[in-house]
């Protein structure tokens, strides 16, 4: 296994990532690419890039891709999957995209049991536009639009997307994972693989929420950012499987 980590997955193009040092998107792209390679579905996969830092994902993934309007990736993926039910269709979305402007689309895609996979990158802020408050920004967390720290009186509370969607009957697999250290990255990949396998079985909607870092906008060094994630995000966003064929398990 260790060897394969140094081979570029066929599913990634040679384009260098534009992501900031320590940004989680590069790691998560790679995990998705490795899973697509391992499942041998590169040529039958259609990805949907969302609006956010990962908007250029269509450049990095070496398969057919559509780029969607802000928040609408689940609707776009629905259109694709309904036309091509035997293809693998997934969206790659940030927390502003999915949990704010696109909340209706994600909830209804999940409720319909749309047979797609959603890779949901939760970095607790709006990365692309420069670190504004997101629906996942933690209470007290400073962002460029909550300069004194998110006030729950004024801006309310973060949304726990995985828990919320797990209350619906449409999803077949929902998990929250993190990438703050190598063992967690390994677990994250397993969950992503499970989600795509579930899609291939056609049993329902699948989503993996990946807790990720944004050192640039958090104003931290990459290593500090991972520690911050572990210390602050994990208590608010517990890791684990919220919906799975074999039942639900929360990590310790």
């Amino acid at each position: 296994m260790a060897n394969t980590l140094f081979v570029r997955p066929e599913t990634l193009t040679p384009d260098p990532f534009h992501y900031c040092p320590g940004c989680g998107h590069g790691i998560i792209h790679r995990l998705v690419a490795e899973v697509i390679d391992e499942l041998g579905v590169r040529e039958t996969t259609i990805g949907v890039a969302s609006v956010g830092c990962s908007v250029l994902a269509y450049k990095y993934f070496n398969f057919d891709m559509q780029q969607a309007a802000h928040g609408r990736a689940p609707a776009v993926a629905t259109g694709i999957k309904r036309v091509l039910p035997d293809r693998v269709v997934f969206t790659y979305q940030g927390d502003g995209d999915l949990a704010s402007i696109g909340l209706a689309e994600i909830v209804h895609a999940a409720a319909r049991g749309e047979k797609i996979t959603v890779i949901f990158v939760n970095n607790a802020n709006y990365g692309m536009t420069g670190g504004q408050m997101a629906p996942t920004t933690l209470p007290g967390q400073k962002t460029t639009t909550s300069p004194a720290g998110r006030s729950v009186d004024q801006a309310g509370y973060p949304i726990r997307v995985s828990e919320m969607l797990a209350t619906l009957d449409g999803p077949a697999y929902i998990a929250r994972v993190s990438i703050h250290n190598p063992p967690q990255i390994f677990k994250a990949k397993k969950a992503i693989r499970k989600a795509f396998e579930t899609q291939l079985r056609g049993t329902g909607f699948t989503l993996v929420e990946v807790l990720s870092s944004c050192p640039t906008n958090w104003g931290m060094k990459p290593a500090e950012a991972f520690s911050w994630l572990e210390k602050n995000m994990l208590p608010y966003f517990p890791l684990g499987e919220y919906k799975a064929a074999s039942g639900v398990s929360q990590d310790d």
Partner: protein
Amino acid sequence: MKILMKGNEAIGEAAVLAGCRYFFGYPITPQTELLEYLSRRLPEAGGVFLQAESEIAAINMVYGAAGAGARVMTSSSGPGLSLKQEGISFLAAAELPCVIVNVMRGGPGLGGIQPSQADYFQATRGGGHGDYRLPVLAPACVQEMVDLTVRAFTLADQYRTPVMILADGLLGQMMEPVELPAAPVNELPAKPWATTGCKGRQKNIINTLYLNPEELEAVNQRLQEKFAAITKKEARAEEYLVENADIIVVAFGIVARIAKEAVKVAHAQGIRAGLVRPVTLWPFPEKILAAAAARAKAVLTVEMNAGQMIEDVRLAVGNERVHFYGRMGGMVPTSKAILEQIRKIGGIVRGKYAVRPA
């Protein structure tokens, strides 16, 4: 063989016969029968009907399905069309063929559910953000709901563009005998650009983002060339009694049908009136109108709005001779009222008339 059909349902059946197998929509009066019809008809034809959570979701489902190479349609009315505008801009930018139906009702705001033509600007000026246009077809009877729906799918694929059918509540709700196309479309044009999985080829990307301004300007130039080609080739209008006409009435959709009656009566009364009915609102048939109005002393634009198409009429024939009559809020002009306007402009004097431009 002719069958009796409601306008909204006729669009639905025509779409199926044109090879459309996917519909994404949301209920809103006065277009809901189209949704209801396709919810029965599409599964029967091996297609998919999906009631979306909103018009925003619906138009983005259209984006995905069109990008996957399908013939696909959505429909709505006023408020729903406003919600679709971002998606339509994306469809135009990504050059994705699809058909969007607007069965217009009175606005602004929630407005009302009676027929209107108040979305002319929204439809013909692009509606969403950025420099784009899309073909807008305006049926005037249920038969044309059928014919122009089929035409819309052809144009959409030919030019890789969203195409709009701009009808109104009256056309959507009324029943008329129609002749459906004899041969359904079974084979769709090849779409090698579609995202269907990259087996055996390079990957395809459907995208509207160009961060490099030079590249984005080049994309815009290419789009403008396409719009110019459509403008040159696809403008259509119906003309009625325009030869030697002193007064040209310009109206589209259901209003043109009412105006035709007024023109006919005016003619019988010795007023040389004619009618130009734009069938394509974009591209606007300006050459046809300019030629028809070349010797006319006055041009009367009649619309179910406060005067929107009149701007295109003025661009085609100049400001001086152009008059306007319109009703708003779901009120439909009567042929009598239009005739009155014609007579007013025509100023009948003992069987002869002299035009007094207002």
